[in-house]
């Protein structure tokens, strides 16, 4: 059953799509990748995810799974070997809590801070940094959120390790800095170099170009 063909529908620039790639790599699962044009969604995507019409979508044989966090748990439960989630129910609940926190609170606040201008920016940056501080505290002295090995929370935090750095450079906003978040920055350095992650990051130059056109040209940028 686990040997059936695996297909991933995603986009090169989506952190949600890239999370699934990391998980498949950790488990050593080969897959076929289909790049979607979100301005012109393929019939396959619309067939596989009629409810949300979004990527990523994982197709495993006849089975279709949508929503990145649902996909990550499916991958963890289907292919043995590497543990993406802890086995202990309490630790598992904590991992799910922080993953949800990143997706529902952190990322929207970070995006808001990057998109805001003038008077709103200071407040938006302050709010986003309060949330980053919670992650900084949660990391404690661990190498990764998952401990010695990367886990669910690290994978879900991929946005922070790469995309955020690019956006803040483009818009000239100071969010993730070594001065404010030394542990998160160190975590980020380890994470992007991890064997299962380094090939699952969009090229910086390509992302820069996309964000420049999305957010407009950079003002003064110090990072």
């Amino acid at each position, binding site marked *: 059953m686990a040997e059936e063909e695996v297909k991933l529908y995603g986009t090169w620039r989506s952190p949600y799509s890239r999370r699934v790639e990391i998980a498949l790599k950790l488990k050593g699962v080969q897959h076929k990748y289909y790049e979607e044009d979100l301005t012109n969604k393929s019939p396959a995507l619309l067939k596989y995810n009629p*409810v949300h019409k979004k990527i990523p979508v994982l197709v*495993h044989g006849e*089975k279709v*799974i*949508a*929503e990145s*966090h*649902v*996909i990550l*748990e*499916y991958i963890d*439960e*289907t292919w043995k070997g590497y543990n993406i989630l802890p086995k202990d*129910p*309490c630790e*598992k*609940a904590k991992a*799910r*809590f922080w993953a*949800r*926190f990143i997706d529902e609170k952190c990322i929207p606040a970070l995006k808001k801070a990057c998109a805001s201008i003038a008077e709103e920016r200071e407040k938006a940056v302050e709010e986003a940094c309060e949330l980053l501080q*919670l992650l900084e505290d949660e990391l404690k002295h661990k190498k990764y959120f998952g401990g010695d090995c990367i886990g669910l929370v690290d994978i879900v935090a991929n946005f922070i390790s790469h995309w955020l750095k690019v956006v803040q450079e483009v818009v000239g906003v100071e969010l993730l800095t070594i001065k404010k978040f030394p542990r998160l920055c160190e975590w980020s350095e380890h994470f992007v170099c991890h064997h299962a992650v380094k090939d699952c990051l969009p090229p910086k130059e390509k992302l820069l170009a996309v964000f420049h056109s999305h957010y407009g040209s950079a003002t003064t940028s110090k990072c």
Partner: protein
Amino acid sequence: MADEVVLLDFWPSPFGMRLRIALAEKGVKYEYKDEDLRNKSPLLLQSNPVHKKIPVLIHNGKPVCESVIALQYIDEVWTNKPLLPSDPYLRSQARFWADFVDKKIYDIGRKTWTTKGDEQEAAKKEFIDCIKLLEVELGDKPFFGGETLGFVDVTLVPFYSWFSVYEKYGNFSIAPECPKFMAWVKRCMEKESVSKSLPDQDKVCGFVAEMRKKLGVE
């Protein structure tokens, strides 16, 4: 090895109701603590410092926050009457639909009674559309979980206690548009774990009326 289970909750919360149902289904004895959300207890603030929200399940002193996360925790610790199936694919489908309920039903349901004009009309239509989509997903099964209450059932049915609020302030009727859904609700309410965990619709309506008066809404 006596388990100490405490549930920090607020009686009209559909998220709290989810955990009440799950604990009742599994026959888990617990201490129920109703929070005053305008004056949150030190225990709540200490147990959920990040969000300061209910429900919080405290198991042998360890807090578990976020209702969908706590539901899975309950299912993993007390393995009788499983809410999630054992097959990974079926589990993923249950999680997908529970996520749909979380993303759509609560927010859109809320909009049906807290907004006006075009926004309210759009919310009402979208709410009915979401319920109809859930009817399709239910199909011919008695419950989303199959023959018995499952993860999606427990996540969804608490919102039924708020239907009279949506209908009263939204000025629409859900039952005529969604008879299959209402039949499913009736089957769920026949289970003691559900009927004892959901407050009367009238009580919830009264609570909202009081709140609106206090806030000076018409």
